[in-house]
């Protein structure tokens, strides 16, 4: 039977609140939007996507491919850079400006604070990805119309379009209206969520934002090789070295499965099983890394 004092203590225990998380998330979005570096990245990428149609002037027979390569490459790079640089600056700036003390002295759990940061960055990345995808879609649509018009130019007035022209038009449609392009973009967003969670985890013990950025850029460039490395060491070495490498590899996510640009551009079909499995992996890994970051942040002396 509980004592009256214990009952009062239970009543005063603060429960986890999604509303508080959302308030911190919206503040995080405002804070990141005010960072000038974000504007530089976004403007650069929008110009790159808009100008991708111009690059096709130099390409021979591969106009649509050139546009898809440039746009998806730009989206991948930009979302990764915003995820890493934007997130790495969040905690150090809070500590430097001492705003973290005013927040954490209020009835807010540290996990809520960190989750708010991750959610805020993820929503912002979702908006940025959607905006870039819309522009990409518009560029692709205009180019598709131009290419079809030029393909049909020779057969105007004919009763039946020749086999070759039909084949060319079908190829243009297949490349420009490929539904797998959306899956590729969704997986690029999943990749950026992983990077946000990892960067927030690194930020919890990093002494400066520069350190977090460098570590995360190294992870980003090593990640495509993790699958190769895994296959090499699984074939050789002792169980002890396997365990050691497994420990190190835990901190390097397999981002190669989220880069479908090269496969989508050549018309490979991305199965739904693969898509959902990869999305699930991204959610799982982000949660685990976030949990680690929260544990480290609980210990941090502010």
């Amino acid at each position, binding site marked *: 039977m509980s004592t009256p004092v214990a009952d009062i203590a239970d009543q005063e225990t603060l429960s986890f609140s999604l509303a508080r998380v959302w308030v911190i998330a919206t503040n995080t979005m405002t804070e990141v939007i005010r960072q000038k570096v974000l504007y530089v990245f976004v403007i650069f990428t929008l110009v790159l996507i808009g100008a991708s149609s111009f*690059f096709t002037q*130099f*390409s*021979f*027979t*591969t106009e649509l*491919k*050139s546009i*898809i*390569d*440039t746009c*998806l*490459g730009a989206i*991948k*790079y930009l979302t990764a850079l915003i995820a890493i640089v934007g997130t790495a600056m969040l905690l150090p700036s809070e500590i430097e400006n001492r705003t973290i003390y005013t927040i954490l002295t209020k009835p807010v759990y540290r996990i809520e604070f960190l989750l708010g940061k991750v959610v805020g960055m993820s929503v912002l990345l979702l908006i940025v990805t959607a905006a870039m995808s819309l522009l990409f879609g518009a560029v692709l649509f205009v180019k598709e119309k131009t290419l079809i018009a030029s393909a049909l130019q020779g057969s105007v007035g004919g009763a*039946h379009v020749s*086999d*070759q022209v*039909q*084949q060319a038009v079908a190829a243009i449609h297949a490349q420009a209206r490929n539904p797998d392009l959306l899956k590729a973009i969704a997986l690029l967003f999943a990749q950026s969520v992983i990077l946000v969670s990892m960067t927030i985890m690194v930020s919890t013990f990093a002494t400066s934002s520069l350190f977090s950025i460098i570590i995360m850029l190294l992870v*980003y*460039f090593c990640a*495509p*090789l993790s*699958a*190769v490395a*895994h296959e090499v060491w699984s074939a050789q070495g002792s169980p002890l070295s396997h365990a050691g490498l*497994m*420990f190190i*590899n*835990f901190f390097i996510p397999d981002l*190669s*499965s989220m*880069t*479908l*640009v*090269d*496969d989508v*551009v*050549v*018309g*490979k*079909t*991305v*199965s739904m*099983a*693969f898509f959902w*499995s*990869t999305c*699930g*992996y991204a959610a*799982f*890994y982000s949660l*685990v890394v976030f*949990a*680690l970051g929260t*544990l*480290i942040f*609980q*210990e941090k002396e502010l």
Partner: protein
Amino acid sequence: MWSRYWWKALLIILVFSPVKFYWEGDIRQLTRASGLFSAGFNMDMRGKITQDAAVAVLGGFRGIVTDFMWLDAHNDWEKRQWFRMKPKLDTVVLLQPHFLDYWDIGAWHMAWNISYDVSVNTAEPREAFRLKEQRHWIDEGEKFLREAIANNPDSWLLYFKLGWLLDQKKQDFKQAAVYFRKAAEFPEAPTYVRRQIGHALTKGGMKKEALEHWKKIWNGPRTGENQYELWDRIEAWIRELEMQLKVPFSERTFPENTYPDSSKYIQPPKTPPNPTHTTPAQPAFAPRPKTPKK
């Protein structure tokens, strides 16, 4: 001394590491099953591209690196620097082996453009050497397409292109028909692919097989894409082959009195020209209207 939080962190790593590896293995299996990521990053690739390009490939700009290398190879083609162009084409297809245009156009450059250019090279007076060079580049084109098929066995286009090369450049009609047949087996292959089988068999002297092929098409379905088939031409080819092979009239596809080699042949009536459809005679050259002098 480690706090309970650090122990918890270590526990998370130990518990979730096997889950992470298991999940990654599962994704790898799915990628293999769906034929994705067959062009990973390897040491062979690293040896063929610069360090900057390797960083760009790892950073997600593989497609753009390939596009620029392709452009570079195209520039070499325009400058007729064939031996610079070939390794670039090899690198392009190493980076993106599933983009069919690279294989198709690369092989066309080698077997058609380069082979012709070396055959009329005025800087080389020895005809035998020019012919040897010409054959070398046709062989290179064929090798390139065979490699393309090994990388993309589920594409009708590459089988067709290889058949076309063997037909046009090597006059190996028997093998060409084999590859045209493989291409035509794909349901998405256009109707002109199956017509090439008949032509290759005819050119290769396998007229019986060619006739069988044309008759099979003639008796086949005429719906969907087939309604646009060149039926009048196919009829003419069947008639021609039946006459050349001296097929008995009882076994021929069309009535006996419609064959010119038959004694019962009835000449089709000549249709008089329709005066309403005749176009007025146009001068071969219309003189430019004189501009009045100022």
